[in-house]
């Protein structure tokens, strides 16, 4: 008995060691990123592996946050603002319009509903990278190429969001809406006042997924704009990584900028991760 106990303890320790090692491998790139963003240019190229910057240099972060030195090629504060404004507008639009459509598809009996739902499901299957040329074509034809409307309008709807919200609305008891209707509430009032508050987890999930999709979006903004004034953090960062900077590697600056791009979404995710886990994954598997 004690022999067996001994063996299982050893195995437990072993699996812990393995797991911790794996966790470190998963986190190592971020730790190295943080450490090297605080080094001098030469030190980051010569001593990549050292986790303690010596000497500490804030030059990269100062440029990224727009403190001190002139903006130059890389106007990070502007990119940050662009990312924020565009992502927020897309998020608000998506949450409102997706939930409206999702509600209609779940609950309202209108002629052609089946057709509309079929279209939504069909667009779910369209691989998004094959849409780059089509979307470039249409915003050019509409005269909104290289503008904020051109960046925002095509991203205002996503079929996944409509589908997700429809699934949430299907779970709300019908009796609630009937009661509201008997009280004389119109369709929109019923939706806004009665049903929407019932699907809060769905709205939170959709908000986070939409914000993440817009904030991390790169491919679409790459084809939708051409002027540096419309750079977001992703397109701007990609531009300097691909050689938009005049001199040297400047890894501390690039790594700091990459960190700035990563942090907001990461924070959002970890604050709301309970909701996401519950809704997105449990249901995807259990149905």
């Amino acid at each position, binding site marked *: 008995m004690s022999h067996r106990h001994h063996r299982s303890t050893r195995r437990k320790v072993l*699996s812990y060691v393995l797991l911790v090692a794996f966790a470190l491998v998963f986190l190592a790139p971020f730790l190295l990123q943080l450490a090297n963003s605080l080094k001098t240019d030469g030190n980051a190229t010569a001593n990549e592996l050292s986790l303690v910057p010596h000497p500490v240099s804030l030059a990269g972060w100062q440029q990224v946050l727009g403190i001190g030195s002139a903006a130059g090629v890389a106007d990070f504060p502007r990119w940050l603002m662009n990312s924020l404004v565009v992502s927020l507008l897309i998020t608000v639009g998506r949450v409102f319009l997706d939930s409206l459509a999702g509600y209609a598809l779940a609950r309202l009996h209108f002629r052609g509903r089946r057709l509309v739902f079929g279209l939504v*499901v069909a667009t779910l299957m369209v691989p998004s990278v094959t849409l*780059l040329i089509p979307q470039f074509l249409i915003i050019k034809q509409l005269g909104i190429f290289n503008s904020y409307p051109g960046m925002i309008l095509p991203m205002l709807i996503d079929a996944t969001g409509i589908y997700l919200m429809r699934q949430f609305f299907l779970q709300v008891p019908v009796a609630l809406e009937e009661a509201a209707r008997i009280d004389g509430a119109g369709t929109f009032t019923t939706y806004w006042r009665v049903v929407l508050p019932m699907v809060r987890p769905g709205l939170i999930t959709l908000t986070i997924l939409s914000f993440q999709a817009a904030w991390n979006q790169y491919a679409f903004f790459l084809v939708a704009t051409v002027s540096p004034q419309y750079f977001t953090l992703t397109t701007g960062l990609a531009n300097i990584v691909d050689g938009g900077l005049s001199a040297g590697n400047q890894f501390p600056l690039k790594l700091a900028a990459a960190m700035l791009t990563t942090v907001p979404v990461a924070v959002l995710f970890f604050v709301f991760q309970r909701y996401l886990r519950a809704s997105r994954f449990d249901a995807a*598997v259990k149905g």
Partner: protein
Amino acid sequence: MTTLPGPDPDLLAGTAAGARRSRRHRLGRRLVGRGRGNGATAGQNVGGWLFVSPALGILMVFLVVPICLAIYVSFTDWSGVTSPFASTVHGVGFSNYASLLTQPGLSQQLFGTSLRDNLYYVLFVVPLQTALALWLAVVVNNRFLRGRGLFRLAFYFPSVTSSVAITTVFIFLFQGSGAVNKVLRVFGITGPNWLYDSRGIFSVALNNLGVHNPPAWSGHLFLGISLWQWLAGPSFGMCVLIILATWTTSGTFMLLFLAALQGVSPEVEEASEIDGASSWQRFRHVTLPMLRPALVLVLTLGFIGTWQVFDQVTLVGPYNQTTYTPAYLSYYVSFQDNQFGQGAAIAFLLFALIVIVTLIQRRLVKEDLTQ
């Protein structure tokens, strides 16, 4: 634990059976609805259309119409400057497709190379990320593990980050004298100059084994490149992207497996434990069968996603042409070379490829369900 709604797994997995089932489900609901609210129908007709029209309008204008436009463009020599309907734009029939599929030449060679590189990416990433995600989920799900939340967080963290940001970090780590090669040197390995190295890893391995001259049969061309080149394996540059993808997506799929594992009751596991099953036997015969739906979903999402890799390639591509994927080639040919007709043709061939992969998957899943 409350069950919340979410995407229908059948639909995500793209099974026809799932779509049929939900259609029947809705039909039943509609009949019930009719029986109840007679007065509501007229109002709901107007309301319903008002509710869906913004979404429908945007989907039509920015999705359906553009796809039709792009199909048209793929049969022209549009250069992206004028309107695609200008008189200077000529119809060229199927030549944009022919120069990719049947006509030997530079276009076909680039397209063939991009298919090969993406194929290796798919063949490596899908098994690696699925196995790693499954293993992590099973380990993290252990009831006796302390700090489960922390581990989960660590493994999930790479998934939420921006692809551009994370590729920036990887370009830094995989420099010729960078962090990865310094770690390899500790183990006595001289690492390659990753991002710049376009040699296929299989051909390098064969070289090291003393095979220098390709056999005669391997000179045969397929899609513009020789069989020897098809068999060369992913380049070292592509390996960086493979490692990157495995590292970023395993966390997402781990969560999917974890959610499925919550459905496996501890009693079943305990019972098999008492029966004296080893942990491998338990995993193989008790846990794995119950994870089958999740496994199918992860493989499906994996196969669809890996054929679409784009963001990372735009950053790594300038270092190394053997990281080009069809998605990137389509972009490059259009926006850098101004051959939008050719680029659109590549996009639609990729589209067709993904649809075929999805259909095969569907067939397999259907067989799986009827068994």
